[in-house]
């Protein structure tokens, strides 16, 4: 099973997947060999405790070490909000998260894990968030690559997704931005920094509502390095709690970050922020410029909303929304230009501060998806994690440009793919060497004919020379000879005819060994040609051509040659 996520939009049973699709009845463990989690976002791992503890699964769960570390924090946070704040019952407990995490097995990048004696999996770097991975799943010679979410353009803290040319039978790729080609990230970064810088210089305060993990770290790094470069002094704060724990893991998993951070961490770990300090509620009223990162990202509740209310009245201040906002949230309202907001208790909040929008998204765009397909060279592509209409466009493009089949199944739909599995056949060394010795130059363009006997025994295949096959199987060899009579109009004596045939063949078959034997017959390699007078018509000679099965090619060529007749002898 690939990923085990939850749906953010529902608060009832529909938020978790319906696992009865897999089992009908019976235990999940009997149906699944393993579960693979690509990264720690809740839409990819949110249902894991429910699945393993409440539905019941005891097999291994594979994820990368950063995912393994950060995933339980997020699950716990999610549980808290659902149970403690919304008071939901029948939800998984903390203990369940712990039990679930005990079933996790860590997979490192490019490590091949043998799940059982058939199935093996291998992880590739995917960008997107810390620890995100793409997985190659292989059984025998057939393989599937599942990308999870990935990003083909590097950002300030993560590198770009990369996969080798593994030529899987099927590539399952996300397609969030199936119809978008994005602008260079540099413009975005520059704009962002410029806006923050200007506001701070003016003495204003900047509020950046973020979700705790992922983009937040990228923006932190961006601001931190900018502050460092420009020698700025204004304080930057980050709301505490979840993020501190997460930052700790970012510091630990340096190998999963980008080149810059990896190369410089010996001098200084980029996640050990010099300028970014923990936020305290009281700081919001401090005078002077500051930058605050606060959760949650859409200004719908919590600390970010509190700070927003405090600062909204001053036109010197600014709020920067670094991501998408769902309709109905404060974030969405101010982005769509509303300047007067109704808060609870019929208060009206006038928004005088500047509102900026800045898209920092970490999914591959259409070009990136195409690039990944180009890198992996799959036989089939399957699009998931996107909108049907957009996928339709991408599907058409993929089919057009790579000439591979592309599928985009709806939820619950099954796709069946034809594959042509390769069957390994062992060849005996002796046979191979013999054939190698015959051929001269290696030429990939021309296939070569190789004669041998295929032995199928105990579900393995071997190609051996026919002598060996006979010996092994204890069979006697049968000689198969073809004989053909060719009529020649030649009034001369038999010996002369033979001589003429001999000289004719000699002149044509330069690279074969043509011999005239003393008993009046001609041999070409192992093919025998004898001449006799026709019993009825003395003007016609009958040529007897005889060859073995192995020389079929040459033999039939020779007969066709002789059938054309001899050239007129010089008289």
């Amino acid at each position, binding site marked *: 099973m690939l990923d085990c996520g939850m749906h953010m939009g529902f608060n009832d049973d529909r938020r978790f997947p319906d696992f009865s699709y897999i089992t009908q009845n019976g235990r999940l463990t009997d149906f699944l060999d393993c579960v693979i989690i690509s990264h720690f976002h809740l839409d990819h791992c949110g249902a894991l405790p429910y699945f393993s503890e409440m539905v019941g699964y005891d097999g291994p769960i594979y994820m990368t070490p950063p995912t393994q570390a950060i995933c339980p924090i997020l699950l716990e946070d999610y549980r808290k909000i659902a149970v403690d704040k919304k008071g939901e019952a029948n939800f998984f407990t903390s203990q369940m998260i712990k039990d679930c995490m005990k079933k996790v097995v860590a997979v490192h990048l490019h490590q091949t894990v043998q799940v059982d004696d058939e199935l093996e999996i291998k992880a590739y770097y995917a960008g997107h968030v810390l620890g995100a991975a793409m997985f190659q799943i292989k059984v025998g010679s057939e393989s599937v690559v599942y990308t999870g979410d990935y990003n083909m353009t590097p950002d300030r803290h993560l590198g*770009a997704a990369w996969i080798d040319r593994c030529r899987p039978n099927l590539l399952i790729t996300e397609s969030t931005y199936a119809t978008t*080609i994005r602008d260079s990230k540099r413009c975005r970064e520059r704009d962002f920094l410029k806006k923050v810088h200007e506001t701070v210089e003016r003495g204003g305060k900047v509020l950046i509502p973020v979700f705790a993990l992922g983009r937040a770290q990228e923006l932190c790094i961006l601001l931190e390095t900018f502050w460092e470069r420009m020698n700025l002094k204004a304080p930057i704060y980050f709301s505490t709690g979840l993020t501190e724990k997460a930052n700790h893991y970012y510091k630990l998993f340096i190998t999963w970050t980008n080149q810059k951070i990896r190369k410089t961490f010996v001098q200084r770990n980029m996640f050990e922020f010099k300028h970014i300090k923990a936020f305290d509620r009281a700081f919001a009223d401090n005078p002077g410029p500051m930058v605050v990162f606060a959760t949650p990202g859409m200004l719908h509740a919590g600390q970010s909303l509190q700070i927003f209310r405090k600062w909204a009245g001053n036109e010197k201040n600014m709020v920067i929304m670094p991501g998408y906002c769902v309709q109905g949230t404060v974030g969405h309202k101010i982005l769509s230009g509303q300047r007067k907001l109704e808060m609870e208790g019929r208060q009206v909040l006038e928004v005088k501060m500047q509102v900026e929008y800045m898209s920092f998204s970490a999914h591959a765009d259409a070009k990136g998806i195409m690039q990944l397909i180009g890198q992996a060279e799959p036989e089939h592509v399957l699009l998931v994690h996107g909108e049907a209409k957009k996928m339709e466009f991408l599907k058409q493009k993929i089919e057009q440009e790579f000439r591979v089949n592309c599928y985009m199944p709806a939820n619950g739909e099954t796709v069946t793919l034809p594959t042509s599995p390769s069957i390994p056949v062992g060849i005996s060394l002796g046979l191979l060497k013999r054939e190698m010795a015959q051929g001269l130059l290696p030429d990939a363009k021309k296939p070569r004919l190789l004669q041998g006997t295929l032995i199928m025994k105990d579900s393995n295949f071997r190609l051996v020379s026919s002598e060996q096959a006979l010996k092994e199987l204890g069979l006697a060899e049968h000689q198969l000879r073809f004989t053909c009579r060719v009529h020649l109009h030649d009034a001369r004596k038999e010996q002369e005819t033979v001589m003429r045939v001999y000289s004719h063949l000699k002149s044509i078959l330069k690279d074969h060994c043509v011999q005239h034997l003393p008993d009046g017959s001609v041999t070409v390699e192992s093919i025998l040609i004898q001449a006799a007078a026709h019993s009825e018509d003395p003007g016609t000679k009958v040529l007897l051509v005889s060859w073995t099965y192995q020389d079929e090619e040459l033999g039939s060529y020779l007969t066709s040659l002789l059938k054309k007749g001899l050239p007129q002898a010089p008289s």
Partner: protein
Amino acid sequence: MAAHLKKRVYEEFTKVVQQQEEITAKKLRLTKPSKSAALHIDLCKATSPADALQYLLQFARKPVEAESVEGVVRILLEHYYKENDASVRLKIASLLGLLSKTSGFSPDCIMDDAINILQNEKSHQVLAQLLDTLLAIGTKLPENQAIQMRLVDVACKHLTDTSHGVRNKCLQLLGNLGSLEKSGTKDTEGLATRDVQKIIGDYFSDQDPRVRTAAIKAMLQLHERGLKLQQTIYNQACKLLSDDYEQVRSAAVQLIWVVSQLYPESIVPIPSSNEEIRLVDDAFGKICHMVSDGSWVVRVQAAKLLGSMEQVSSHFLEQTLDKKLMSDLRRKRTAHERAKELYSSGEFSSGRKWGDDAPKEEIDTGAVNLIESGACGAFVHGLEDEMYEVRIAAVEALCMLAQSSPSFAEKCLDFLVDMFNDEIEEVRLQSIHTMRKISNNITLREDQLDTVLAVLEDSSRDIREALHELLCCTNVSTKEGIHLALVELLKNLTKYPTDRDSIWKCLKFLGSRHPTLVLPLVPELLSTHPFFDTAEPDMDDPAYIAVLVLIFNAAKTCPTMPALFSDHTFRHYAYLRDSLSHLVPALRLPGRKLVSSAVSPNIMPHEDPSQQFLQQSLERVYSLQHLDPQGTQELLEFTIRDLQRLGELQSELAGVADFSATYLQCQLLLIKALQEKLWNVAAPLYLKQSDLASAAAKQIMEETYKMEFMYSGVENKQVVIIHHMRLQAKALQLIVTARTTRGVDPLFGMCEKFLQEVDFFQRCFIADLPHLQDSFVDKLLDLMPRLMTSKPAEVVKILQTMLRQSTFLHLPLPEQIHKASATIIEPAGESDNPLRFTSGLVVALDVDATLEHVQDPQSTVKIQVLYPDGQAQMIHPKPADFRNPGPGRHRLITQVYLSHTAWTEPCQVEVRLLLAYNSNARIPKSPWIEGGEVSPQVETSIEGTIPFSKPVKVYIMPKPARR
């Protein structure tokens, strides 16, 4: 045991002989039998392959002389035939290759043997090594056609080998030796006219990636040797671009580039359509595609090569910057386009609207091409690559393309400006430099300037200084732009006061480039008022000086500007013109005479009166030959003084003037030393007086070293004169020592050494001897046979008379000569706070210095630290610490580690820069060092050093360690 002893005897024998070989050539031959014989005995003695291998390894460590190579080769071959162990054979084969490289040895005699053993060899590794040997032989004999032909045949025969190593070597051989003319050798045989290209091309589809790579490399090798590659390989190479292995793809990219340079104009069809395009455009598109390859090695390679494809049509070129953005299938404008529009509509980006970048028109889904639209967006991808190596390569390529195409330069500006915000400093720096290089072609828009100027706050000094240089040669379009730049520079000045000089210089150029834009700003900048007098600004304020520098330089070409100046501005002008003359130009001010000589720039330097003066004064000196000694001395003294003053006044003549003055100084010293009256006094009385003469000799030596190594642009004819002067000084030294020392024994050595020097001089400068008519050395060489045989006392006597008689050599002036100089910027030596550190530990001292006209500073510039106790420490800076900001200029930024035992109170240490020299570097190296396999490290010993910067004092205080 006996054998062992024998070996030792041989070894010792060899050693002794080798020591002597430098002196006489005769005994050299003795080594020949011994060398090979020793090897022979060693190899016979070896009981196991491991032993034999050891002996061979030992043997390989020592060089072999050209004469004995053949003997050694025979012995090696003999053992080769006998040897059963493949590893030993391998080593022998490799030794054969190395030996055949020995210069002075013609390897054609061993070729037959090598080919012979090749035929019987079974081991693939040995085969490969043997082919390598053949390659060495073949490259040694480039003009022998028959041998090359034969080797190529051998290579072709082994191409079918099953081992990739052997095929590799065969292809290498073909690439290096394959005949260049196809038809030239028809007479030899049918085989000889093989088409090497076709053979190599067949291996493009070999099953082993290493062989494929080797085949492409061989093809490139053919190209390098001057063979014109056929156009047909272009298609083959294109297929290799999608190879599974990165090294193959990397080589294929190179090959495609080569072909595209050879046949830029030929037409190739576009697959799956009827259109045709130029080959160079097609290749450009393909290489662009490789910029998004999976392997970064290939990406770097591709990005680099893009830069050198200048023939590509502009239409394709501009595509590289265009990514065709879209969002939900609707066309979207890039941020760059939006910025441009906003600018032209007279409004700055508000960014306040969410829908600011909302997609506009619908896109026809059929028309969108997501990949393989050739060059599309290649640079956009390259510039935001994950690896900074790729980004740097892309920036470099942008630079090269922009230099050749002004329209492209205009387009790529936005992207370069974006790179100013890269996370890696090297990339930022590189993009600033790039921008500077293309700045002739571009004019910055105001919003772009804004982004550029934002970088001025960068904390890295390199970045800021590079940016100042960039601003020096930037074109700004509006007066607001100039104002903005000035404001930002002043901000920079207050934030980083150390940038003062660099900012002033930058404003100087900014002013002189944009006089008309500065003009309307003048009242505001000087804060003058039409009716009221304003307060006089502080003259020492660096910011005020900066403003003045800008204005005065603009005023130079804008005669109406001085009318706007207030009284104190004129006064300040006079002051600045004097104190900062390199920054403030001479102005035509109303009511004032033009300060200093109005050297109009169109007069060529050789018509320059000061140049004439220099020439004349030198000629005057050279013309005097037989003046009375007193007069000569005086004239020399005056001329030296004149020259020194001239050097101070005219910076462009400083090098020549100083150089000549130093030479005259040497001459003067020599004359003075010879004029000593006491030469004729008996030796015992002379002791005290000799000080002056020996000091003169010593000083002349020092000065000649300075002349030889401190000036760049010194040519051979000057070097001869300098060496000649040094020889005279040595002669003087010899004479003085002869007079002051008693006994003859030490003199013998000295005399011999001196005669060796003369001999060496003769060998080095044999070609220049005719120019030295009548000189000291000329006469000396005449008398050489006599000197060789005479006693030291006699030699001294001869030398003395000759020194007196010899004439004064005319020093021809070099075209371009510059004196090396260095200024230590940091440490400034002003601090009163001692640098405290615990004794026994080290403290790092940041040293920042600019070097001018130093050739090869990486190996010559050293830092010296003098401690108060007289202890001196020499530090060799790392090569990476030197930067090269411009031609002839270098910047040394490094750290010096100081350490000392505890002191009772703080004290000053002196830090200075030294120029190390080694006069032996001119001696041609003995041949076998180059040819030998393990050539001993070429000695980089330092013979002496010349201090060439003012010492800076640093206050330090090593504290005793706390217990």
